[in-house]
């Protein structure tokens, strides 16, 4: 059974896997953005002791290995761990948490850089407008929205592509926590190399499609809202 046949025949299990991948990764991107963007902007606009060290750490965390993030979240959520009471290890929620932890620093670090550059450019105007810090953060984030879209896509791409974290915290359970990347890993280990590479192409196509959609939205927004 080739990946192409699965797509053409509308294989329900393949669509469920693709659907779960998108749900997990979009949710993780959302949470990472909600926390990471304001945090990045706040760091950009604030001066405090240890700021440079924090920025270096934040930038360094862009390279967090997925397998280490997965292991950390696993130990946290395991029944024998501090958050074991929640009982969400080996569920999609655990996978969302792991991916959000993975890409949160990427979104925060890149947002900080973008906002800091923008701040340098518009500092005088914003100071003249006598805005509160929250309003400044909001204004700058809004001004930078097209750059932030690219940052979101970078985070999304990173989360969609990783296998180490979701494998550990999701357990790759058939029909429940199996996503595109863990399916590819599994089919590779079963020796179904043709199916594995086919699924890989499907995954790449989906990521391309989402980027194309984002590009189209951006074009539309630039024309209509300036």
């Amino acid at each position, binding site marked *: 059974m080739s990946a192409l046949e699965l797509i053409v025949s509308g294989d329900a299990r393949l669509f469920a896997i693709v659907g779960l991948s998108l749900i997990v990764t979009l*949710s993780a991107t*959302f949470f990472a953005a909600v926390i990471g963007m304001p945090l990045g902007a706040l760091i950009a606009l604030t001066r405090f002791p240890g700021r440079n060290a924090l920025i270096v750490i934040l930038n360094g965390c862009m390279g967090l290995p997925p397998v280490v993030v997965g292991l950390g979240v696993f130990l946290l959520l395991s*029944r024998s761990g501090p958050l074991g009471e929640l009982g969400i*290890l080996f569920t999609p*929620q655990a996978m969302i948490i792991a991916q959000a932890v993975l890409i949160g620093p990427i979104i925060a670090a890149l947002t900080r850089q973008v906002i800091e550059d923008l701040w340098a450019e518009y500092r005088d105007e914003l100071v003249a407008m006598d805005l509160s810090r929250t309003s400044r953060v909001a204004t700058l984030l809004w001004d930078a929205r097209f750059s932030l879209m690219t940052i979101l896509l970078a985070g999304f791409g990173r989360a969609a592509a990783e296998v180490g974290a979701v494998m550990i915290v999701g357990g790759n359970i*058939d029909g429940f926590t199996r996503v595109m990347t863990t399916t590819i890993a599994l089919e590779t*280990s079963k*020796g*179904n190399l043709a199916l594995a590479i086919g699924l890989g192409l499907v995954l790449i196509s989906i990521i391309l499609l989402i980027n194309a959609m984002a590009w189209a939205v951006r074009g539309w*927004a630039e024309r209509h809202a300036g």
Partner: protein
Amino acid sequence: MRLRPILIAAFLAIGTATLPASAQDKSIVVASTTSTQDSGLFGFILPKFKAKTGIDVKVIAQGTGQALDTGRRGDADVVFVHAKAQEEKFVADGFGVKRYPVMYNDFVLIGPKADPAGIKGGKDIVVGLKAINDKASPFVSRGDKSGTHSAELNLWKAASLDPAGTKPGWYREIGQGMGAALNTAGAMLGYVLSDRGTWISFKNKGDLQIAVEGDKRLFNQYGIILVNPTKHAHVKKELGQAFIDWVVSGEGQQAIRDYKIDGQQLFFPNAGTGS
């Protein structure tokens, strides 16, 4: 507000993502081995169990060592593995309630068709391993504390050899699952110990074939254990025990017997035999 569609999509996504969790009241988590999953056995028998009881079985395929550890941490309700000594220790340490023998198959020594160690067609695993050692032929070890890995170490011991300790260049521990080990052996034209089920169902045999089989030391027994609810109160003991009872029942045993690939039976039920 350009962000609104993204926000709405994300909220929908989170809502959907939490759905399976609320529907999981009749489900158990079984930590098992890569061999039972990669061979397709679970895909065959679990729908039958689901049809009869309505219980969803969520399988996490790991090596036996890791699967037992998952049980020890309380992250699974049932463990279904193949390393009798480790299983008995698991129960003796109080992490499992009782071990039930379920089925067996056997290990086979896989090697390249070129057969650099000259052991093709052998029936004696010790002779085979000694030849690999003498010829320094590449050998891929799972190296992941799985059931197959511990069986392999026991076989080296039977041959009075200790490549895992002395680490000669031809002995390559990859720390991965059975399928990955077969892929690696195929790529480096090396020998590898595999359970027969995974070997039969493996799709990338390439230049590999069975080198040694039929030695009684290659016997591979599987057992199933309920994780002890007195250690981990959240263990779903009724549902977990229902699964165990079904697996060792006449019906479950028949389902295992019925699983075939290309007419070959992969696992041989032997519940209640004391194996």
